[in-house]
């Protein structure tokens, strides 16, 4: 172990291994190849169908639980995925991921200003479609698809793409 450590991090300057410029050039070209491959992968991904993603449905709560202008936190699709259900207008239910698209701080519902607000860096999102209203977030909040049946609200999937 010590021998290996001494080999990798020698005390004497002369025993250190240096990367030659040619080796560095090769490494950078490999990195370039990796990035090109990644870009091609993204191009292929962009051509794949971007339908809304249906998932297992999960009951969020009852309609009666949520007052007009109110909000309800829930987890969907996994237990650690934070989401928020809001009722911006009476009878209109919208749900979004709570993770701000900037640095993943949880957003909060501000009924007075009719927006989802990220207190970390003053980001704000529309409750209509999750679009960015202000601040540094680079994209809209992912929207959770909802179904209301017999007075109960269910999360049934996640909207993708420009929907």
């Amino acid at each position, binding site marked *: 172990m010590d021998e290996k450590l001494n080999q990798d991090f020698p005390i004497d300057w002369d025993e250190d291994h240096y990367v030659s410029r040619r080796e560095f050039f090769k490494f950078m070209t490999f990195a370039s190849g990796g*990035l090109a491959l990644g870009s091609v992968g993204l191009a292929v991904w962009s051509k794949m169908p971007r339908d809304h993603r249906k998932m297992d449905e999960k009951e969020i709560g009852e309609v009666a639980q949520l007052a007009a202008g109110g909000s309800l936190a829930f987890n969907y699709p996994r237990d650690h995925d934070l989401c928020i259900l809001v009722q911006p207008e009476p009878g209109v239910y919208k749900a979004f991921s709570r993770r701000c698209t900037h640095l993943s701080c949880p957003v909060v519902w501000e009924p007075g200003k009719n927006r989802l607000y990220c207190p970390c860096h003053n980001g704000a999102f529309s409750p209509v479609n999750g679009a960015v209203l202000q601040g540094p977030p680079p994209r809209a909040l992912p929207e959770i698809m909802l179904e209301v049946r017999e007075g109960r609200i269910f999360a049934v999937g996640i909207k993708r793409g420009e929907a």
Partner: protein
Amino acid sequence: MKVSPAGHRRRQRSGIFAALLLFNLVLVLLQLWLFVGVLESLLDGKTTMAIPAAILSLVILGVNVWMLDGVVRLTRDV
């Protein structure tokens, strides 16, 4: 001080090598910027830039491979 022709050639090669290396670094940074930009736009649902960016990235890779080949030949007999 007079520099011998061999020394002059070595200096020239070294200069060319450094220039190519710098250009290579700039191109890889450009690729990285393209990759991150396309990833961001895809996550935002915008797909129009993905294919042009992939083509440009492949072109840059071609240039880098061509330069690497040049560098290998340049330094073969040094």
